[in-house]
């Protein structure tokens, strides 16, 4: 039963994600954290960080992580199959029938507006995640460093992940954490 609800929940997440892995965050929050209680928002951020520096699509990595936490190895596999299932169906339908799908004016208009909506939803998610993830001054500094550099320079997320993990360990040792 748990496996079935994992599959269905992640299929929903896959079907409602418009854009890259970041666009999945608002949907994951609603379906996985609020509705199912399978992970906390701190855990979601942990998985997201690990998913950035491990191979593969971030959406898939996050699904495997949460699935494993809920129902072991089978859970990890089922959640992943769930998140890719809508893509399989939708893409093959479109590829088979509507080869010029992306050129249809109505599709273009709809997606231009969906992008606006995704921006707003991500803004809301960031405000929510901020509360759990950025609890002291040192964390604010780390946030600003990563945001600033990633906006203006093309740096691999792996660099940020290694830097922040190291900084987290050093700051904790130095007793700066929590101040």
């Amino acid at each position, binding site marked *: 039963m748990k496996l079935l609800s994992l599959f269905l929940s992640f299929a929903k997440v896959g079907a409602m994600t418009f854009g890259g892995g970041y666009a999945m965050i608002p949907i994951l929050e609603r379906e996985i954290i609020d509705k199912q209680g399978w992970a906390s928002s701190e855990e979601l951020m942990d998985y997201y960080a690990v998913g950035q520096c491990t191979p593969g699509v*971030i959406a898939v*990595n996050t699904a495997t992580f949460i699935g494993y936490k809920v129902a072991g190895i089978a859970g990890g596999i089922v959640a992943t199959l769930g998140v890719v299932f809508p893509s399989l169906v939708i893409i093959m339908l479109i590829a088979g029938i509507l080869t010029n799908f992306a050129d249809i004016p109505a599709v273009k208009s709809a997606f231009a507006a969906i992008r606006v909506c995704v*921006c707003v939803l991500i803004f809301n998610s960031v405000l929510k995640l901020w509360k759990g993830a950025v609890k002291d001054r040192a964390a604010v500094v780390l946030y600003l460093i990563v945001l600033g550099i990633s906006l203006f320079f093309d740096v*691999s997320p792996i660099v940020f992940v290694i830097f922040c993990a190291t900084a987290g*360990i050093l700051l904790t040792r130095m007793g700066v954490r929590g101040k």
Partner: protein
Amino acid sequence: MILLRLFWEFFKTGLFAVGGGLATLPFLYDISTRTGWFSQAQLADMIAVSESTPGPIGVNMATYVGFTTAGIPGGIVATLGLVCPSIIVILLIAKVLEQFRSNQTVDAAFYGLRPCSVALISAAGLLVARITFLNEADLGLGNGLAALKSLFDWKAVALATVLLIATRGVKPLKKLHPIVFIAASAAVGILFSF
């Protein structure tokens, strides 16, 4: 045989593409040049479709390329090939992480990683916002007020304002599922030809 090769090519892509869906693109160009299964022009179409359909872009791309190359079995096999390395690597990490969860050093590392994740999500959002709200192509046209007027995509700004108020300020709407706002936005986009 082609299915086996598809699986292998996408397994490699899933194993070496680090950092999200668009990181798979260089690998797909490489597959296109080496195998000739699909042309680079076709690849450009596939990117457009993958970005305008639900689902993670990397997964959409794998399904599309696989389907173009070898029909429905191809779409399924390519997608499974792409996610296989993720499943293996993440399950291993999740298992190790479970054992070291209470370890102080691991806990301290995650203390540093959480603001990092939020910052990366913020940056991704801001980059999308930039292409959504700004007409950078028109930059430098006219001067003063005219320049300011042409810099912003005012339809997008108006929709974002309405959505912000609805999702943050209006109590009965706040609790609605995000997909409701996405669907409503799509309708608005078509109606007002965004």
